[in-house]
């Protein structure tokens, strides 16, 4: 962190995306860690598995992200001891919101997306701002490439976005294969035009059989 005066944060760049399906959830984030015009590492995971069916991806200040992940993991462990079961995705969503708002006056500089399966084994995606305001949606993107990606997702995922009323079930009719194909294409496109996105994209697919991980190469320039 180059402390200029008392500016405590740094933006490490990167993009994350999540799409919820009828019985799956796709979460993806690139693996580039950068600052200014330099690359720190090409191999940094911005995704964290919080529970069996709950995964979080974030962009922003990775120092704060590491602290947030540790915080949530500790709270989840306590929950497991007290309730003898894993936290469900909607429960974890509320926990994350409370954890973020707890630091309302010195925020975690992270822009989070939570993805997983809810208690009915349907895909769910929760999107957050830096201080804990959250909403369940059909798809979301955050980070330096989000501005390039969200218009494409709006166009392709005929699923309801918050703009369409009355609010319908927040999942897309696409199959799992098609959603993963869309995520790969959308990352390749964002990489072309955003200097902070690139190197590799880590794609996680959560469904009834567990969590499957895939790494795809992106442009390294």
């Amino acid at each position, binding site marked *: 962190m180059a402390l200029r005066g008392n500016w405590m944060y740094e933006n490490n760049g990167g993009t994350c995306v999540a799409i919820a399906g009828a019985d799956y959830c796709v979460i993806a984030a690139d693996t580039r860690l*950068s600052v*200014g*015009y*330099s*690359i720190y590492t090409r191999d940094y995971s911005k995704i964290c598995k919080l529970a069996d069916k709950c995964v979080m991806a974030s962009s922003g200040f990775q120092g704060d992200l590491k602290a947030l992940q540790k915080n949530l993991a500790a709270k989840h462990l306590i929950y497991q001891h007290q309730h003898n079961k894993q936290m469900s995705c909607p429960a974890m969503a509320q926990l994350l919101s409370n954890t973020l708002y707890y630091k309302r006056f010195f925020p975690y500089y992270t822009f989070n997306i939570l993805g997983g399966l809810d208690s009915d084994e349907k895909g769910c995606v929760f999107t957050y701002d830096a201080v804990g305001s959250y909403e369940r949606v059909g798809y979301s993107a955050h980070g*330096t490439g989000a501005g390039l990606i969200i218009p494409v997702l709006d166009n*392709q995922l005929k699923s309801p976005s918050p703009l369409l009323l009355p609010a319908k079930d927040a999942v897309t009719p696409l199959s799992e294969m*098609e959603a993963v*194909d*869309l995520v*790969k*294409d959308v*990352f*390749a496109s964002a*990489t*072309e*035009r*955003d*200097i*902070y996105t690139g190197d590799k994209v880590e794609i996680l697919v959560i469904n009834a059989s567990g969590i499957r991980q895939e790494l*795809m*190469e*992106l*442009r*390294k*320039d």
Partner: protein
Amino acid sequence: MGYMCWSSEIAYSGGMARFAADVPTRGGFSFDLCQRNEMLLKKGNQLPTFRKTGTTIVGLVFEDGVILGADTRATEGPIVADKNCEKIHYMAPNIYCCGAGTAADTEAVTDMVSSQLQLHRYATGRESRVVTALTLLKSHLFSYQGHVSAALVLGGVDITGPHLHTVYPHGSTDTLPFATMGSGSLAAMAIFESKFREGLTRDEGIKLVSEAICSGIFNDLGSGSNVDVCVITRGQTEYLRNHQLPNPRTYVSSRGYNFLKGHTGKTGEPYIPPNPRR
């Protein structure tokens, strides 16, 4: 503009500058709006940003002449504005110039000096010399006191031999056997400092220049896409546009995208074609 024109006979009381309508403009920048811009900034209005090239450009002298290299990415802040722009500019048949900094400034200044060189060739009946281009560039940039944000690597071969120079936005120059400029200059210079030696052959020189540009492309976020190379020797210039393309797109969707009729919402108002008889 808000300024009124006063005739030169009326003295403006208050002792401030006289606005004389019949004095011709002296060229250069007019700083009249600076006060108003500062006022707007205080009110919260943001100045528009320029497109910078965020670049890696290099040059080196080899046994038969000069080799120039450049990447091809133009950025507007964090966004890539042009994935394949040309940063090696023509100055004369035997002189080329790489440009880093504000794209409009590098284009304008190299085009201007290129024209001046051509007129000079017609007047003298001789091939242009690199030092001529150098002097024209540096005096122009100095007179604009660094406001013309162009950082250049100028190279060429003339009757006195091969020459390589760097020109900075404020107007200073260096004469060097190898040079790098732009945001990726450190990455490229690291390669040059470890591998450069005097008297490289043409192939060795091209390979070294490509390596230096690639170092900038992969390690600097302001540089990217492809490698352009320009080889200048006595009597011949080769412009190798896109000499290397080390960054192909990694994924193309096999599904493709379908935009069906009715995809875009309509308001329902009828379309009335314009009257052709008008």
